[in-house]
Every structure is written in structure tokens, then in C-alpha cells.
């Protein structure tokens, strides 16, 4: 039996999250202390060497990203923690913030030192007001203890827009605007919040930082897969015995996640499909379950690690019905800024509804494929580019479910 590796969740259930002394007694803020003893350049090199890649879904090397902001000359720079966790089936960032909020603050302060910023924001989704309260308590305690030095952190609340998980939309929202993504380049590390260099990293990315500094880049780089080292926090939902969270090294297979950690499918039923990475992730059939969960292995099978949500469907589930539901989600969440997404998500949902109600034709399936391919290339941001993924992968792996529903 494979075992969990609790690095991010090392303090889970062991400390009182709202008592900073507990965190400090467990070794907290040693990473920040160590970071402040290094030059900015050495610190960034260390983070880069650890191989830590963004845990929000894009998988960019965190140290390299920090380097862009460090090198950008500006009178003000910002550190933003993306806590706008909105991928259906995902609650890992909430777990981190509720159970070990100081680890996130510490990671942000390290980033602040690395790039030369004294101001951080946590953009927390509006659906988590109870998490916002906890974060504010944690920030007050950190300020009172003086552990953050001159680094200041404020919490800003999102308001129910999935697109704000995209970093430039998130920045627009902190600025008090509609959360519509910006054209890129320039990228936020160079021109971000209020036009200043800004690092936006996911909660899980920041929470990894203290332990990387404490134990060293080489130690971290040796965990899990070589190209995407470390652990991944995953949340198991749908038709699975253990509907819970797990933290596993990134060289774990999907099969192990579902059948060992997840305990398999309930009621003796058979596995049909799993969608990983949230609602924008691809559907994966039984034949691909031996794939590793790391970023590149998942990309190689046309799927994504994304947020680490694992949504399992048993043999009784209607793939077309679930996909139809997903296309409704994207139609609702498209911000409307670019037409391939605004119109594409709408037409995609229309086609799926038609097929789901038994009114589709073979020509509709071709149309869906073409529409999906165009959207994945032509949409402005990750939302529209990823939106067709569930449709395209179900057409690829579960085509008979569609053809069985045609007129």
C-alpha cells in the first residue's frame, strides 16, 4: 500500500491553526529567517533549484517567475496569493488555509523578500467568508509577533467569479474592476497589480516554500517526479469510497490515487471515468490509469493535473449528461470579454443539451470537435482554452456514449 507524504499538511491536526505559537514551536518561520540570511539572488536560485512548479494549474517554475519580478525595476512590487479556489471538486486551498494559515503567510513573506516587495494580498474566494476570518486572525497574530517584519498582508474577497482564478483577472478584481483577463504580454511579474511587478502564486505553492527552505532545494527536488517534484494535495469526490483529501508524491499513479488511497468504487460497481484537475480537466478512461499524476505525464495523455481534484464516475454514470452539466458551468462562468469563449461556451452547451436530449446528429459531434479545437486555440485566457477539454476528451474516449444518444 502506497503511503501519503504529508509535507504541506505536516501540521494538520497537530497544531491549533489559530495559535501562532503552535506554528512557531513546530518549526514555523525558520524558513523565512533562513531566507532573510540569503541574498535575493541566492534565494531565488534555491527556489528555482527545488523545481517547485506552480500548483494553481499552469505549472510554471516558481523560482523562475520570482526572478522576473526581482529583475524588474519598480518603486513598488506586490505579492498576491491566489486563494480564489473555484474549480469544482477542489477544496485543497481551503484545507491549507484553515489548518495551517501561517505557512501561507510565511511563503508570501519569503517571496516578498525575494522580489523586494513589502505588500502582499490574499485574494480569497467570496464563498469562504469563514476562511477570511481565520486568515485575518492569523495575520493579526503574525503582526503582533513581528515575524513578518515590514511585510504587510491584506485579505481581499472575491465575489463568485471562476475566471478570477486567472491571474490577470484576479488582479483586475483586486483593483476593484470586473474580473476580465488582460491581454498578455506583458505578464504580471513585470506589469501586474496597479501596473507594478506582481507575483501571483497559488496557496499551495506558497505553502510549499517554508519547508523547501528549511530542508533544502535538493531534498525537495528529490521527491516525486523529476520534472514536477514534491507532493500534490488532491481532493477525491464522486463515486469513490474515501471522499477525502490526500497528499501524495507526484510520482503516484492515478490508479493508486483511486484504488489505494481512495479505496476504489463503492457498492462493488466498476470504474468508468475520472476527471482530474477540476471541471476544466480531461476525462480519463480505465486504460490510462497507470499514468503518473505529475504535470507533464498528465499533459502527455491530453489531461491535466490542474488543481488536483479527482472526480470519479462509476459504470452507471451518464458521461454525456455530466459533460452537459460541465458545459453549462462554462457558459455561466465565461466573462464575455473574447468572442471565441463567450459564443463558444454558449454554443457548446446548446449542442450538448441537444445531444443529451436525444436530438443530436452525427454532424453535431463533428461540429463539437471543431468548435472545441478552435476554442482551445483562439480563446484569450485559460478558461476558454480549457473549457473544451471535457468535451474533446469524452468524444475521444467515450464516443459510444454520444452515438448512443443520437437521433
Amino acid at each position, binding site marked *: 500500500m502506497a503511503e501519503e507524504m504529508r509535507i504541506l499538511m505536516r501540521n494538520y491536526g497537530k497544531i491549533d491553526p489559530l495559535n501562532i505559537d503552535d506554528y512557531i514551536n513546530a518549526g514555523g518561520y525558520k524558513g523565512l529567517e533562513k531566507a532573510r540570511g540569503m541574498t535575493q539572488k541566492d534565494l531565488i536560485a534555491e527556489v528555482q533549484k527545488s523545481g517547485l512548479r506552480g500548483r494553481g494549474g499552469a505549472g510554471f517554475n516558481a523560482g523562475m517567475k520570482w526572478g522576473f519580478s526581482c529583475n524588474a525595476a519598480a518603486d513598488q512590487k506586490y505579492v498576491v496569493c491566489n486563494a480564489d479556489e473555484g474549480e*469544482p471538486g477542489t477544496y485543497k486551498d481551503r484545507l491549507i488555509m484553515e489548518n495551517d494559515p501561517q505557512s501561507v503567510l510565511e511563503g508570501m513573506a519569503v517571496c516578498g523578500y525575494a522580489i523586494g516587495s513589502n505588500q502582499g494580498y490574499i485574494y480569497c474566494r*467570496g464563498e469562504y467568508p469563514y476562511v477570511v476570518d481565520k486568515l485575518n486572525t492569523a495575520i493579526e497574530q503574525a503582526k503582533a509577533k513581528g515575524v513578518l517584519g515590514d511585510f504587510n498582508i491584506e485579505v481581499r474577497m472575491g465575489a*463568485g467569479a471562476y475566471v478570477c482564478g486567472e491571474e490577470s483577472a484576479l488582479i483586475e478584481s483586486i483593483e*476593484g474592476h470586473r*474580473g476580465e483577463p488582460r491581454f498578455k504580454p506583458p505578464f504580471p511579474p513585470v506589469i501586474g497589480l496597479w501596473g507594478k511587478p506582481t507575483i501571483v502564486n497559488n496557496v499551495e505553492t506558497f505553502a510549499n516554500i517554508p519547508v523547501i527552505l528549511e530542508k533544502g532545494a535538493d531534498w525537495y527536488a528529490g521527491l516525486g517526479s523529476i520534472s514536477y517534484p514534491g507532493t500534490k494535495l488532491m481532493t477525491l469526490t464522486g463515486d469513490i469510497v474515501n471522499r*477525502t483529501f490526500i497528499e501524495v508524491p507526484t510520482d503516484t499513479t492515478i490508479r493508486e490515487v483511486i484504488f489505494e488511497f481512495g479505496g476504489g468504487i463503492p457498492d462493488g460497481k466498476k470504474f468508468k471515468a475520472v476527471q482530474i484537475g477540476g471541471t476544466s480537466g480531461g476525462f480519463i478512461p480505465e486504460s490510462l490509469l497507470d499514468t503518473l499524476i505529475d504535470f507533464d505525464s498528465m499533459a502527455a495523455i491530453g489531461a491535466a493535473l490542474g488543481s488536483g*481534484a479527482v*472526480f470519479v464516475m462509476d459504470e452507471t454514470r451518464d458521461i454525456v449528461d455530466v459533460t452537459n452539466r460541465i458545459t453549462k458551468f462554462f457558459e455561466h462562468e465565461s466573462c464575455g470579454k473574447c468572442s471565441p469563449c463567450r459564443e463558444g461556451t454558449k454554443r457548446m452547451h446548446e449542442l450538448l443539451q441537444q445531444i443529451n436530449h436525444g436530438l443530436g446528429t452525427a454532424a453535431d459531434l463533428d461540429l463539437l470537435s471543431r468548435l472545441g479545437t478552435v476554442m482551445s486555440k483562439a480563446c484569450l485566457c485559460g478558461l476558454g482554452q480549457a473549457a473544451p477539454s471535457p468535451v474533446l476528451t469524452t468524444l475521444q474516449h467515450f464516443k459510444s456514449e454520444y452515438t448512443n444518444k443520437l437521433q
Partner: protein
Amino acid sequence: MTDYRDIILTYKDLPGGLIEAYHALQREFNYIPEDAIEVAAGVFDIPKSQAYGVATFYSYFQVGKRGKYIIRMCESAPCHVAGADEILKTLESCLGIKAGETTADGKFTLELTECVGQCQATPVITINSKPYGDLYPEKITSILSECK
């Protein structure tokens, strides 16, 4: 109008404070009164269209009156396969309203929402942002009776 202005003024000097001001209004009234948007536009010195555009962009904000208890039913895929439809039907029949409506006595508003991040306990609803999970139809009656 004065009430709105006092609330909004608190955020006037906060960079990007408009959204925080809307959150504060919604905490106070459970929704954003339409008149308050005009006040906000004045305080933040932006066109009314922009103030309105921000308020209506975000699904967590509701412009116009809502009930005392806002029930939001998650309809994202994990809740969908866990029986969200059945829970929604139960809610609709208990409350005598459809999703998007408010009861005549102004007590309950029923809304649909996407994932609320409590997927360890699907299907999930939230009542005034507090999550209730692992729902089955019989449980709905007792949860509703807690709302006085």
C-alpha cells in the same frame, strides 16, 4: 441613502475598495440595493455604468432585494452526480418557490451556485454562506426549521 454612503465611505481610500464596499453592503442588507450603486459611483468617482458593471459581474453579488436566508444549491458536477437535482426539488417544494425566487414572506431566497468548495460532503447547500453537506431530502426539512 445616508446609510449606504456611510458604509461605502469606509472603503473610499482603500485601493480597489469598490468590491470591498459591495461586500460590506451585502453583509448589512443581504443584497446590494440599487440606489447604493449610484452612491458608490459618486464616492469612487466612476461612471454609474462602471459601478453597475462591477456589481453585476460577480455572481456572489445580488443587485436588488433578497430574502433573509439565502439558500444556494451547488450544481457543479460532483454535487450533480451526488443527487443535487433531488435536493433542489425538495427545496423547491418545501419553500414553494423555484430557483431564483424569494418566498412571499421575504424569508427565503433560493439560488443555484457553482462549487462552494465543500466537496467532501456532496451534495451541498449554503445558507447565508454557511455550508450544509451530506444532504438527503429528509435532512432539508430539519435544516429549514432552524431558520427562524
